[in-house]
């Protein structure tokens, strides 16, 4: 394995009775990148993360972390990994500091300074000695990230870390994750069911649906590659339709309820807009939608929380 690959799965699968929750999942995460693991609810993201953190045994395939097989080198490799699986659950009757001390004892014991450093990083140092039950959901989530960062791991695995946070909390967590990658060269494996979140945070991504990996690559390349469907509301529509049809880069054209739906490369959207305006056509709306976005929306049909 090349040294810059920190996480790799080979045909990873988990079967519950007759149902495969995850099937033949092979993915790679390179050192220093933020890898977005995207999929709708129930796609198999959490099961995969549980296998990556040895909470669940794979039914098939295996996981390699830092070039070592996870099952046979569990303690050695997990000492270099931090994780947050689903909700940030803690001992509610203990303080945040005590919770982190408990976790620290399982990592071989960390200094008081190391614990305070992560609490400061997530903005909880001032309330470190208060019981976790007095914390808001957002604070618990931040404490969840703090525990994942204990001991300065090389790889952190976060399962939907912004779930339930308000917009400001989401922004803070995203900035924190980006900062960990850029300032500390930490590798992050981040799962989400929100494409926008992955787009804003991750450098690479993989999409999982019904337990199978659909696509994997660099975020920018995946989102900008290929064609898009551009929805145009213009007047007069007949003139606009004629002009659009004449363009060589247009691959398809349809009119639906007075809206032009143009199949074309994303890079030519600006040119088309200029041409329409120069022709004296009143363009009241021009909305490009990438094919990957369309695809993701189609597989998350029924999930309304798409921002």
């Amino acid at each position, binding site marked *: 394995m090349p040294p810059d690959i920190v996480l790799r799965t080979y045909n990873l699968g988990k079967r519950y009775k007759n149902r495969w929750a995850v099937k033949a999942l092979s993915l790679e995460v390179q050192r220093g990148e933020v890898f977005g693991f995207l999929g709708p609810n129930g796609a198999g993201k959490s099961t995969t993360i*549980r296998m990556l*953190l*040895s*909470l*669940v*045994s794979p039914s098939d395939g295996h996981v390699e972390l830092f070039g070592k097989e996870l099952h046979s080198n*569990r*303690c*050695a*490799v*997990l*000492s270099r*990994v931090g*994780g947050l*699986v*689903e*909700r940030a*659950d*803690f*001992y*509610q*009757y*203990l303080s945040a500091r*005590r919770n982190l*001390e*408990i*976790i620290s*004892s*399982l*990592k*071989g*014991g960390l200094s008081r300074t190391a614990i305070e450093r992560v609490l400061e990083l997530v903005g909880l140092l001032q309330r470190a000695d208060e019981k976790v039950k007095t914390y808001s959901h957002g604070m618990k989530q931040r404490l969840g990230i703090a*525990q994942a960062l204990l001991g300065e791991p090389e790889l952190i695995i976060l399962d939907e870390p912004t779930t339930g946070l308000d917009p400001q909390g989401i922004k803070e967590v995203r900035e924190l994750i980006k900062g960990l990658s850029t300032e500390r060269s930490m590798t992050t494996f981040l799962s989400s069911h929100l494409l926008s979140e992955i787009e804003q945070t991750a450098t690479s991504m993989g999409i999982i649906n019904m337990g199978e990996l659909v696509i994997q690559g660099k975020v920018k390349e995946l989102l900008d590659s290929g064609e898009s469907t551009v929805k145009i509301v213009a007047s007069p529509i007949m003139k606009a339709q004629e002009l659009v049809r004449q363009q060589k880069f247009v691959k398809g054209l349809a009119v639906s309820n007075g809206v032009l739906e143009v199949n074309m490369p994303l890079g030519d959207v600006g040119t088309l807009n200029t041409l329409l305006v120069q022709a004296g056509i009143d363009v009241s709306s021009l909305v490009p939608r990438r094919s990957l976005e369309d695809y993701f929306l189609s597989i998350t049909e029924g999930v309304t929380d798409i921002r």
Partner: protein
Amino acid sequence: MSMFSILKHELIKTYFKWRTYIGFIAIAVLVPVVQTALKLEGGSVVKRMIRGLDQDFMLVGNFFNGYFVTQLIMNSLWVHVPFLISLVAGDQLAGEATGGTLRLLLIRPASRSKILFAKYITTLFYACTLVSFLALVSLGLGLALFGSGPLIVPSKTFTIIPASELIWRMSLAFGLASFCMWCVASLAFLFSSLVENAIGPIIGTMTVIIIFLIISSIPIDLFKDLRPYFFTSYLNVWQKALEDPIPWETIQSHLAIIGAHCIGFYSITWYIFVKKDILS
């Protein structure tokens, strides 16, 4: 990973929890209530017990004393104390699963076996502290309220143990009782590894104990044959410390059987726990 450090934090988790003190509070309330009631009754229990005996023998001394009431209270070791122990023992793994904290622990570079062992030792320690607390309250309050004196032990024959021997014999009885409660704790701990709610292990443990006790008490030959296979048949080993002479061989064999049950229950728990998929 230092085992001592993991154990220290398991003890902190257990002893900082409100649930842990339910047993202590129950004992702190019930023992004084029972002892006050006995005091108000004025020793009629002893009088009933030695009725007829005092016609043939001249019984001298205070038989209605602190040791006697402690011996009566120790009968709570059959059902009541096991219930209080299963409250905490049954919560050790299932409670963490319910709270979602099990996954917080098991994604760390400490082996599951080590974490499980620390939890088991904590459970046994709790059983010891609860039985020690029972000893302290019942003996302390008993001696203060009723004074000292020889202990009359009703069994097939009457045994009277002089007061001078009773401190070490009572200590031995409570020590043996602690060991018996380890067996109950181990069973609740096993049930705790099977479910993800803390009520299940309590119900499971109490169901097993009560069924075994009922079957053991029914005088049918088939049930009599089954009795040696029930661990509850050996939970009376603490009573042996109050027999005269002390049947050391019986105590040894009882302890060996209880110890084997503890190891057996723990081994099954370990097998389940290290193989278990954590889905909570």
